């Protein structure tokens, strides 16, 4: 185990300083270029073993982490909850101990329980990266969203960003709120009050009850996925009404005083929280987010494994 400028683990953006977040974003810049090469591989993490431990189904995040690891030449193993010892009733602490016994360097964990990444990090010496824990945090998603905003606007400070939708159950929302606020953005949320935390004021964000008002205010909207389950559990009456009242549509965006940038962490429910012509339209940077995801994760892997930030540019060339 090595401890770099981020500490042992990346569990969330709430515990990080503004400088640490800037460091990750700055370190991601040189790594972007690797994915544009014909041969997308550098030897930076050669000899490191990483386990991707996914207790929840995930395509985008898992593949993104895996590409980041492979492009840095790490040896990786993917473990999904189904078909593993987990489905046979093994506890998280036993899973952790078994992984530790195999002398691995890093674990990337996605888990349905808030706090699961911290639980693991406190019990093993390997570096732990939180790839989403329950409704708590999803730090690399927050980082890639910020990198995408910075690419477009040149800076985060003073930017007006509204997070739209199911903030109550969203780990993406929490990581975005902490990260953006630390870098000096003005952050707002917009959604039905039944899908906002009752204590939302404590986050230091503006609350918009109407999406029209949010659009008037914002430089960028980060539109959260609305899970079908929320309707089944009675938080909202129907997806149709949700789209009518809170959906981000071209008509609504057209009334904005400026071009509002559109982000979405995916996977999208087209026609629910976001209309197709917005998702596919000129103000959407949804696919840029996906591209940036690989670079941000390479930066996190590099920094956590003890890589020195000033050498990131050199590291991509293969020199250590």
């Amino acid at each position, binding site marked *: 185990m090595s401890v770099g400028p981020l500490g042992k683990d990346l569990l969330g953006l*709430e515990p990080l300083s503004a400088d640490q977040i800037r460091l990750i974003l700055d370190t991601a810049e040189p790594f972007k270029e690797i994915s544009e090469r014909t041969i997308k591989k550098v030897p930076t993490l050669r000899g490191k073993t990483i386990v991707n431990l996914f207790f929840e189904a995930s395509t985008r995040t898992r593949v993104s982490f895996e590409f980041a690891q492979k492009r840095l030449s790490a040896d990786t193993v993917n473990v999904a909850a189904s078909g593993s010892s987990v489905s046979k009733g093994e*506890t*998280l*602490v036993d899973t952790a101990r078994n992984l530790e016994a195999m002398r691995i360097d890093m674990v990337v964990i996605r*888990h349905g*329980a*808030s*706090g*699961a990444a*911290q*639980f693991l990090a406190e019990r093993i010496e390997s570096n732990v990266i939180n790839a989403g*824990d*329950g*409704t*708590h*945090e999803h730090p690399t998603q927050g980082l890639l969203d910020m990198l995408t905003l910075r690419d477009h606007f040149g800076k985060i400070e003073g930017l007006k960003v509204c997070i739209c939708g199911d903030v109550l159950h969203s*780990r993406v929302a*929490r990581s975005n709120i902490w990260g953006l606020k630390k870098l000096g953005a003005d952050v707002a949320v917009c959604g039905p009050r039944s899908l906002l*935390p*009752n*204590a*939302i004021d*404590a*986050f230091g964000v503006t609350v918009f009850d109407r999406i029209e008002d949010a659009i008037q205010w914002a430089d960028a909207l980060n539109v959260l996925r609305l899970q079908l389950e929320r309707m089944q559990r009675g938080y909202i009456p129907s997806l149709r009404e949700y789209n009518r009242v809170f959906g981000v549509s071209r008509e609504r965006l057209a009334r904005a005083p400026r071009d509002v940038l559109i982000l979405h962490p995916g996977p999208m429910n087209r026609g629910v929280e976001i209309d197709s012509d917005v998702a596919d339209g000129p103000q959407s940077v949804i696919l840029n987010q996906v591209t940036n995801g690989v670079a941000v994760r390479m930066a996190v892997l590099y920094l956590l494994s003890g890589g020195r930030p000033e050498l990131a540019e050199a590291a991509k060339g293969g020199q250590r």
Partner: protein
Amino acid sequence: MTGRAVLLRGGRLIDPSQRLDETGDLLIENGTIAGIGRVGEVRRDGDALETIDCAGRVISPGFIDVHCHLREPGREEVETIATGARAAAAGGFTAVCAMPNTDPVTDNQAAVGFIISQARKANASRVYPIGAISIGEMGETLAEFGEMVAAGAVAVSDDGKPVASAQLMRTALEYARTFGIPVADHCEEPTLARDGVMNEGIISARLGLRGIPAEAEEIMAIRDILLARRTGGHIHLCHMSTKGSVELIRWGKERGINVTAEVCPHHLSLTEDAVEGYDTNAKMNPPLRTAEDVAALQQGVKDGTIDVIATDHAPHHYDEKEREFADAPNGIVGLETALAVNLTWLVKSGIVDLPLLVERMSCAPARLFRLPGGSLQRGAAADVTVFDPEVEWTVDASSFRSKGRNTPYAGMTLRGLVECTLVDGRVVYRRDR
């Protein structure tokens, strides 16, 4: 009972049942209090007198815990009636009331008889069974209160679960009047509390944990108080945790409604901040609340809105707590830390004095649940606790008599330790010195 006599000499005798607070001696013979008076004034002829020096110690009627979980039958690997009764003795409790959410549930006279029989074998602190309100704690069919009381049950409760049906609660309050027993309710509105794992507030929002709002408790508290008014039955509200509940109980008492209430040491000392870091030893139901709630509960203890302090002792196997926060079971052990937590957070901080603490931990529980003890008057059962109210110690869960180790106080330095516990005049616990 043994004819051997015990003299507790030179302690601070505190007995709110006779407004007593002075230094003196206490003589115990044949399982009862035989004499009480100034130092050297209490005499007894003959031999076989064991003398216990109590200088610098408090001698009080034994503490009575009206709310604990002893896990037997069903989860004997977690706690048994014997280990629970010994933990009680070590904590200065001469009697505890065992909640019925065991496996099987204590919902009939045979189950009540089993607990009494196990308690007799344990030969430590007294254990009184609390019977279930409904068969299997299913919230549907009333259990046989009469037969359970005849077998030794002292109250009824579906604790662990709320009584969701207002009609069932109404019937229970009415039916219990025949037997003169309290109906103890775990106040939790189940649809509001659904899937909640901690107090709803800033910390739950930050940690991404589903919250239980204060209103889940308060809605049921006022429902129960109103039903007690309607029926005249005795409602006893378990483990109150919010400022709003204190206000509602005060409202009820001002109107002469037959409501009593208890609070746990952890709700008088810790806040939701203890959950930070996803510490499963800070997970209990009702959850730890805010500093404002703690202050209101402390005030309730002081002014009598809250009648008794009860532990809600809830042992769990160590690996049940060693898991994801949302999946870990609720509850902490409390019997062996209750006195010290109360002394540290209530007495040392000047909110209540020692006689009031003894009232809340001994006299009031005896009176409300109609149990022996709670008094040092001549002729009373010799259930007595001797404790050092000043000594500081560091909580080491591995030293507990309870099988449970799940405590949020581990490693904390607290004030006050039990020196000696006597039940029926017999020493059931003595501190190693």
